[in-house]
């Protein structure tokens, strides 16, 4: 196995707020290798976006407390200077954001905004050349008539085209790592499929290491190699795509899988859901954070379970649940498939 390109170890991000310290990310660790697609999955507020933005220092602020380590090719980023981080943004680690409607500046032409990304890092590239490169990039992500469309303003692009342009901009300097923060969430399903296909193709052609942040397991199933499931700022389960989908260990993962609507299964009476709401990060329950929503809670749960491999046959598959793996296999069967049973009324 090749050496990791990006290595995150014990990352903790907290924000001072009026209500106290909000620990948005609490001890996240993972490795990312060239050509690998890592999916970070979780609900809103689980800390997945904060994790991603912290990698390139976008969460830095006087109110943020960032601990742990992020290493890109051995170079520590958590302690890097603002200038060092700035040089690396876009150049080595690029980011695509959720909402393509608002992620472009409305007053500049699309082509100019891509050219700006190029010129920010390549001082020797002239205006005309940066423009020509921007057009080539738009063309490469499938924007028809790129030469003319580069002169359009963002509001003249459709949502899907804007996200393509966003990806073109992220690829402008041939980065090694692409962080895609909910890249398909704001798009309709057909466009989602196109954008995912584009990301997959780039990943294959350029060996681009990708972090895909999403709450949509359908998206994960299509493109991810490995999966990290986050809940309330912590990783509750991590493993390969197959491990997570076919042998999920954490009840929260069961819930996520069970709430997928599937066309190849009999239609349920109503859509399954995980009852309750994620806890406030200011008042986390003692022990396992998922405990208040978990129908399988038992005496050990008030203690925080460590994230560790609990299956001898899968040393890379870790989770945070005290339940015995054998009992998990029984408990996760709900109506003949994986799911989280509804809590007793």
């Amino acid at each position, binding site marked *: 196995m090749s050496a990791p390109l990006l290595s995150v170890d014990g990352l903790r991000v907290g924000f001072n707020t009026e209500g106290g310290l909000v620990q948005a990310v609490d001890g996240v660790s993972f490795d990312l290798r060239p050509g690998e697609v890592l999916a970070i999955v979780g609900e809103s507020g689980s800390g997945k976006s904060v994790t991603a933005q912290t990698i390139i220092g976008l969460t830095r602020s006087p109110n943020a407390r960032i601990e742990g380590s992020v290493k890109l090719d051995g170079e520590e980023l958590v302690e890097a200077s603002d200038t060092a981080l700035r040089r*690396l*943004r876009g150049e080595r680690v690029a980011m695509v954001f959720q909402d393509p409607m608002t992620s*472009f*500046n409305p007053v500049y032409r699309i082509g100019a905004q891509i050219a700006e990304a190029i010129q920010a890092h390549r001082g020797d590239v002239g205006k005309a050349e940066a423009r020509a490169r921007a057009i080539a990039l738009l063309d490469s992500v499938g924007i028809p008539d790129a030469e003319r469309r580069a002169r359009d*303003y963002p*509001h003249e692009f459709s949502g899907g085209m804007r996200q393509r342009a966003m990806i073109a901009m992220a690829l402008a300097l041939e980065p090694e790592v692409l962080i895609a923060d909910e890249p398909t969430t704001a798009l309709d399903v057909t466009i989602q499929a196109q954008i995912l296909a584009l990301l997959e193709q780039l990943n294959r052609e350029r060996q681009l290491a990708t972090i895909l942040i999403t709450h949509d397991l359908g998206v994960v199933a299509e493109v991810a190699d490995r999966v990290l499931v986050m809940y309330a700022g912590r990783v509750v389960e991590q493993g390969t795509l197959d491990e997570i989908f076919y042998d999920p260990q954490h009840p929260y993962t069961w819930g996520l899988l069970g709430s997928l609507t599937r066309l190849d299964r009999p239609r349920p009476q109503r859509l399954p859901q995980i009852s309750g709401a994620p806890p406030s990060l200011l008042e986390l329950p003692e022990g396992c954070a998922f405990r208040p929503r978990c129908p399988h809670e038992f005496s050990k749960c008030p203690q925080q379970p460590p994230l560790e491999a609990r299956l001898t046959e899968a040393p890379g598959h870790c989770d945070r649940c005290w339940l015995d793996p054998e009992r998990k296999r029984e408990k996760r069967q709900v109506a003949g498939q994986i799911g989280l049973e509804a809590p007793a009324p």
Partner: protein
Amino acid sequence: MGRFIARRLVGMLVVLFAVSVLVFLIFNVVPNSPPAQRLAGKNATPVLVKSIEEEWGFDDSLPQQYLSMMEKVFTGELTSYEPRIPVDETIVEGIPATLSLSIGAGVIWLFFGLLLGYVSAIRAGGWLDKLLTGVSIAGISIPVFLLAPVLIYFLTYKIELFPNGGYVPITEDPWGWFTHLILPWFTVAVLSIGFYSRVLRSNMLDAMNEDYVRTARAKGLSERKVMTRHVLRNSLIPIVTLFGLDFGATVAGTAIITEKLYSLQGVGLYAAEAAEKFELPPIMGVTLYGAFFVVFVNALVDIAYAYLDPRVRLGTSAQ
């Protein structure tokens, strides 16, 4: 863009028509006394009143009266009657002083307003921001009629730093022009400096939370470029509208008080003196020409706005 400008200019003509009708009604129709008497002035002879009545056609129908008034306005035949001085010529004589005052003040308030606002925004929450906030609010709170006498008292009588009032044409003596205008400029500008810096600061703080600013950072732009090209640039758009309105209001409003206070021989002083003497034709002329000017400036501003914010150019093709 061409279509947008054409549409805006047509809109401007409609507004001008409405303004002129309003002025006509206010001056000639609404007051409950013979209009010729009022136009003639307080001590007019019956002969003069009679001739004005014929000249303006006050026996005709209202639309006809309106047309003859507009004819006078556009052919420059509007005069005050005692003594008989053409209104348009006097206004033209006053324009250099008024424009010198307004444009100079506009440049000063834009420059300092934006500078203070920008510094405040990028230092938001710090001591410099708090200091500038205090200065801005002081500037907004001081009325012109208080500020001007205080400045004149201390800076021209006490220490004789600046000349005492009057206007020197720039063509005769540029330095004299400059020194005579510094105090009036700042008198007009102080309020707007405070106001603009507050508006820009709040616009910039809003813009800093926009997604596209995060995108700009993620591209690896320097903090200075993020602030100027993305935060400041987008925050300036509302300022342009504000400036159009305020500049018009300065020429047609604040200038009157300021020119009076500093005895600058501009259009504002002319209007103020005409008002003191109850001379209607100059007031009518200044009101109408002033309104035309304000409407014209606003049309220009809207066009500039469309240039700055492409989303405004509705109905234009995407080329």
